[in-house]
């Protein structure tokens, strides 16, 4: 899932202090699981902003709301009239939600309430760890299910650097060396020899280096377009 963290209230106040009508709008999927931006957190953020406004002696109308998923218009568009009554929307979704809302709800500024952090796992309640880089060209079958792209601080593909110390990374004794984990895992799986093959330079074009990425599943996209056209025709009738 996508893991995010709330921006500090000081930073939020800095971006919002000149607006009069604000809606804090949450997303009840990933960022709700990481206790950062669901309906509950949106409500708390709205309260904190109201307190701050009162402390500053500023008059502000701050509402809050949420939808199931800000990454799909059908979930937030039912609230469009509420959005239109605001000066600004503070989205506590991940950056995907902020981007999509910005493009769909007209000339209404949509500001980020979170810092979108990473694609993470929840190994235990309250702990979130980065385990996938979303590089668009997965190599996990070659590395024992441990991602060298984000779990190795240097994204090395051919084995550990010289910085491993007692199984930890040179950047911190708190960070596991991914290549230490990979080697140990591959030994257990009896597939260590897979690591002996030289991995050539990676094509980063499938990652962010290739520009904005887009995937179109044509038969589904076409179906949707047809249904929209049909609906338009019916409305015209």
């Amino acid at each position: 899932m996508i893991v995010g963290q709330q921006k500090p209230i000081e930073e939020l106040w800095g971006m919002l202090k000149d607006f009069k009508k604000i809606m804090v709008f949450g997303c009840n999927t990933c960022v709700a699981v990481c206790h950062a931006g669901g309906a509950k957190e949106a409500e708390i953020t709205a309260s904190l902003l109201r307190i701050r406004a009162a402390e500053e002696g500023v008059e502000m109308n701050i509402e809050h709301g949420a939808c199931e998923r800000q990454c799909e218009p059908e979930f937030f568009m039912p609230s469009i009239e509420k959005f239109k009554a605001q000066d600004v929307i503070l989205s506590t979704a991940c950056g995907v939600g902020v981007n999509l809302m910005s493009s769909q709800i007209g000339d209404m500024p949509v500001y980020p309430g979170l810092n979108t952090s990473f694609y993470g796992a929840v190994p235990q309640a309250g702990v979130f760890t980065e385990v996938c880089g979303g590089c668009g060209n997965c190599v996990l079958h070659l590395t024992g299910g441990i991602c060298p792209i984000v779990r190795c601080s240097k994204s090395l593909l051919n084995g550990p650097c010289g910085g491993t110390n007692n199984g930890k990374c040179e950047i911190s004794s708190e960070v596991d060396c991914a290549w230490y984990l990979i080697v140990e895992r591959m030994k257990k799986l009896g597939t260590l020899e897979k690591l002996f093959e030289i991995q050539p330079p990676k094509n980063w074009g499938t990652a962010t280096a290739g520009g904005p990425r887009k995937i179109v599943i044509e038969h589904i996209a076409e179906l949707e377009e047809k249904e929209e056209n049909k609906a338009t025709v019916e409305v015209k009738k």
Partner: protein
Amino acid sequence: MKSGSNLERVILSGNPAVTAELGPPMSAAPDEIVHKAHILKGFCDAANITDCQTAVVRISSIAAAFIAQREGLEPVMQMTCRDRNRIAMQADLLGAAALGLKNCLCIAGDHQKFGAAGKLKGHPGAKNVYDVDTTQLVGILKKMRDESLQEGGDKIEVPPKFFIGATWTPMGDPMDFRPYNLKKKVDAGAEFIQTQGIYDMELFKSQCEKARNLGVLENTALLAGIIVPKSAMMLKYMDANVSGVTVPKPLIDRMAKAKEAAGDDKKKAKQLQEEEGIKITVELIHQALEIPGVKGVHIQAIDWEPAIEIIVKAAGLYPRPNIPAE
């Protein structure tokens, strides 16, 4: 002969090779490079010119290597994967070759969070690159030199002729994988290998044997890394904190004893420890050169370049061989 570098000629001649290290300054003044080059010249076959070691900004390896070469010291330019993508790397390799540089050591580079192990501010917020890793960089150099092709496949009219090097941390975790790690670099094209500093020669010997059994050491020149110890404190620090470095207790005890012999005289303690450090270094050099497959030593006298002359002479490695170019 792939590059015609002095280092390559010495290695091919069968003489034990000696490399040293020259760290460029955090300043635009070339004087320090010139000064250090004159101290090292004649006492090593080539000297590594570090590439923003510990992620601290210094004169670039290529520029400093050019200055050292101008002063008559053969440089080994270093190239980290941290700071350049494959476009910048290849552009710099062409440029370095055009400037007459002949040795290149490929390294991953210390992570930017390092900042001289906290002693300097550094640039912990910098974005690193790691477009390619060391093994891949070695492969790129080989492809450029031997196939006259860029990584992407475009033709190179005049290819850069480098003697290609890489590093090895034989005693780093996971230790049983390290010989294979070395094999990958050598299979990719590394013709010389400099190791992390070795104090535990027995362990190093067993790692070398594993590498030899993989058929690696016949295809590369392994230069054992020796970091000249200056004090008991330095040895203890390295043992506890430096990745892949273990220092046997008897060596630490020897240095501690040298320190104790000076009593409260701090100047004397420094002198006695340095003398003991040089003795230890010479012993380590001799032990390393006896290991089958070891073709030389890489001596690092950190901030103590004048020690190289003393060590090389005491180890019987002076004068350095003069192998004329073809």
